[in-house]
């Protein structure tokens, strides 16, 4: 019995949309602009909605970082046009104000972590690739999938609106630690801005859960005939583990938020105790524990890092193999290491809390578990490099970004071994060393995975190619720039330069870094402008890019390249193809590639 038969069986609910090959034409005549582009239930359109919304947020979040880097790099300069542009609250007299600075770093963090690298990355590629690569007409529940996007959209609108309220957006850091986040009197950003931040994040959690449930159900239940779990492309394995992490960790964050909402609005004392607020006096709250919030937050917060990173890992594995014209090295080890990372992700959260007064013995257990992550990570790096080894490499922009991902993952991952040690963390905690570490290994690396995915699957998304030369310029300036921005931060952090300070020029110890800070800020602006170049390439190519003329432009084995160049809702015309082999038969028996849909021949060698 096929998937479609499951839906058609008498026991099945009758509400499922009709997406079967034979009825196609009829189904599509009734599509309006609204059902096709706005409230679409087609996973491919929803993926594009996630991608473009994520891009809008990436531009806003990136612009925020440029603004606060302006303050760090040029603390003495005045840019009167900034006040004309942003208003007095943000840039009085042409200088980013302290409250604006904290609002900017907070919103930059929240937006990049959740809206760009969670929704924009796994929202886009899980939606786009899961049905196409497992051989399904759509997600298990296309309606829930649509809801997932619109919850994200609503969360986006609420977050955006917080930028325009009187006291500004939340400004207590993206982790929203109480008591700062729990007390409206504690800072301007903790008033309306924080309410909107919480509403937005709650909506975002709902969006993630609806999406994640669907991804898991689709991968496990909707695979086409012959597509056993061990024949799945690694993209799907990675997106599957990502969804599992999200479904198990976001509810815990949600419970942390609920307690925070009660502390904020109903006077409870979950997180609050013995607090004196300047101008208000002593608060009556007794017996709460601010550390409790940190436990709940980081129980999501650490898996969140892998929610961001795993999709990039999966796509990079696929792209490296396709463009090396070689099977992925150690397929099972790749799955095993993803599994190990997913398990360990839940067991290391307290390494964010070494300096909170955590019991040192408990800390040493978390050190051990944290350092264990180096093992699966090293397996993955080894396998990526051995996939490249003696490959017949095609340096497409997607391939360059995939190789760039591996480079960034190594250099950012190594500093993780430093930070995972509780003793070193006493010195490095809350310094620029941490900023450098997580931006390289999680931020930039995942961005590279996302870029690789966009360049690679753009032909499938829009039936056209992105411009290659612009892609090369984009890649080389971005990778050089990313290292020039974040590498020097390691030195600043080792010298003890703390994060989140408004002005370093007034500190004798950090005056020496004035030139370095200016250098970083300048490079940040250049890298940001190159991303605009990418966006131009993206939107220009949607309409005017070179047309795709063959079904399988990269010579890849996976199922998405067996669909028509412009697949309709339902993906395949007629029957869904059957699968006979794994996704990585490249360069086998003298053939360059053998698609998954080709039956095993009698004379074929075993792999």
């Amino acid at each position, binding site marked *: 019995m096929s998937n479609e038969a499951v839906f058609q069986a008498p026991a099945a609910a009758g509400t499922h949309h009709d997406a079967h090959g034979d009825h196609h034409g009829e189904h599509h005549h009734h599509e309006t602009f609204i059902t096709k582009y706005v409230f679409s239930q087609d996973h491919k359109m929803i993926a594009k909605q996630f991608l473009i919304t994520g891009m809008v947020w990436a531009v806003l979040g990136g612009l925020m970082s440029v603004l606060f880097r302006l303050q760090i790099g040029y603390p003495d300069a005045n840019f009167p046009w900034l006040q004309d542009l942003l208003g007095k609250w943000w840039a009085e007299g042409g200088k980013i104000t302290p409250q604006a600075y904290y609002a900017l770093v907070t919103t930059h963090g929240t937006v990049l972590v959740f809206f760009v690298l969670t929704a924009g990355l796994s929202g886009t590629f899980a939606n786009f690739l899961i049905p196409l690569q497992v051989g399904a007409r759509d997600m298990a*529940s296309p309606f829930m999938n649509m809801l997932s996007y619109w919850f994200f959209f609503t969360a986006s609108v609420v977050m955006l609106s917080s930028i325009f309220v009187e006291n500004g957006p939340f400004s207590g850091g993206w982790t929203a630690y109480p008591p700062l986040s729990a007390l409206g009197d504690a800072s301007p950003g903790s008033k309306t801005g924080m309410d909107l931040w919480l509403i937005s994040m709650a909506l975002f959690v709902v969006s993630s859960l609806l999406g994640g*449930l669907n991804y898991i159900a689709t991968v496990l239940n909707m695979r086409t005939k012959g597509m056993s779990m061990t024949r799945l492309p690694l993209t799907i394995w990675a997106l599957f583990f990502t969804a599992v992490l999200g*479904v*198990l960790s976001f509810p815990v964050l949600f419970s*942390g938020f609920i307690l925070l909402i009660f502390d904020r609005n109903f006077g409870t*004392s979950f997180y609050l105790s013995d607090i004196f607020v300047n101008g208000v006096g002593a608060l009556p709250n*007794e017996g709460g524990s601010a550390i409790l919030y940190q436990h709940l937050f980081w129980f999501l917060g650490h898996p969140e890092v892998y929610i961001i990173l795993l999709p990039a890992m999966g796509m990079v594995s696929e792209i490296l193999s396709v463009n090396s014209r070689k099977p992925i090295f150690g397929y099972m080890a790749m799955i095993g290491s993803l599994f190990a990372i997913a398990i360990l992700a839940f067991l290391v959260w307290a390494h964010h809390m070494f300096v909170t007064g955590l019991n040192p013995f408990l800390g040493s257990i978390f050190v051990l578990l944290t350092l264990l992550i180096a093992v699966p990570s090293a397996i993955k790096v080894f396998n990526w490099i051995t996939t490249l080894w003696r490959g017949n490499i095609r340096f497409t922009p997607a391939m360059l970004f995939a190789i760039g991902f591996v480079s960034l993952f190594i250099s950012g991952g190594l500093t993780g071994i430093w930070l995972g040690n509780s003793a070193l963390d006493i010195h490095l905690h809350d310094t620029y060393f941490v900023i450098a570490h997580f931006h390289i290994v999680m931020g930039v690396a995942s961005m590279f995975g996302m870029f690789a995915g966009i360049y690679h699957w753009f032909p499938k998304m829009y039936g056209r190619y992105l411009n290659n030369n612009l892609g090369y310029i984009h890649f080389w300036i971005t990778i050089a720039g990313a290292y020039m921005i974040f590498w020097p931060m390691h030195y600043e952090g080792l010298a003890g330069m703390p994060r989140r300070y408004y002005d370093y020029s007034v500190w004798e110890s950090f005056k020496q870094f004035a030139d370095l800070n200016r250098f970083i800020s300048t490079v940040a602006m250049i890298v940001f402008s190159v991303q605009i170049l990418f966006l131009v390439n993206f939107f220009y190519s949607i309409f005017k890019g070179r047309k795709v003329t063959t079904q399988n432009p990269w010579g890849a084995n996976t199922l998405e390249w067996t669909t028509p160049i412009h697949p309709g809702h339902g993906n395949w015309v007629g029957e869904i193809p059957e699968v006979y082999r794994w996704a990585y038969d490249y360069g086998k028996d003298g053939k360059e590639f053998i698609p998954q849909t080709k039956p095993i021949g009698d004379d074929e060698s075993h792999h």
Partner: protein
Amino acid sequence: MTEEKRIHPHKFTLWVAMGSIVMMFAGLTSAYIVKKNQSSWLEFELPKIFWYSTLVILLSSVTIHLAGKSFKAREMGRYRNLITITAALGVLFIIFQVFGFLNLEGRNIALTGAKSNSAASFLLVITGLHMLHVLGGVIAILVIFVKAYAGSVKQYSSMPIDLVSTYWHFVDILWIYLFIFYNWIG
């Protein structure tokens, strides 16, 4: 797994969703334990009415189970009665829980506000969230009830009632866990 026994994707999605809900309550009850082991934790007796609400929700699990059976036997009158009773018991459960909160307030154990202790606040938040999940179940029952009789096309699929029934048993078991947790573990 043979192809015929393949689980329906919606049913599977529900199971994953229940796993997700479990994680939320696991997070909250873990926080409860952490907090209990710190200073100034108020010990108080649970409202007696929680025993009755436990009885009510157990009974509702029986009625929804019988409702599913009658649906499959096409005894639609019986099905209609049983599912109405189930929804009513769900509402009764919620009312009993609210009485429980009022009982605490009546004993001067503040659930919210400046004088509240987080022991009582935890009870409100966790029980309240569970109540919302029961309310969701009641709404789901109303939806399948209306759907089964509103349209001109008769519904013969037992999938909707199966889904709601599974969820209903789940919130029942969740409450039993919370009840045991409040009384003997936490």
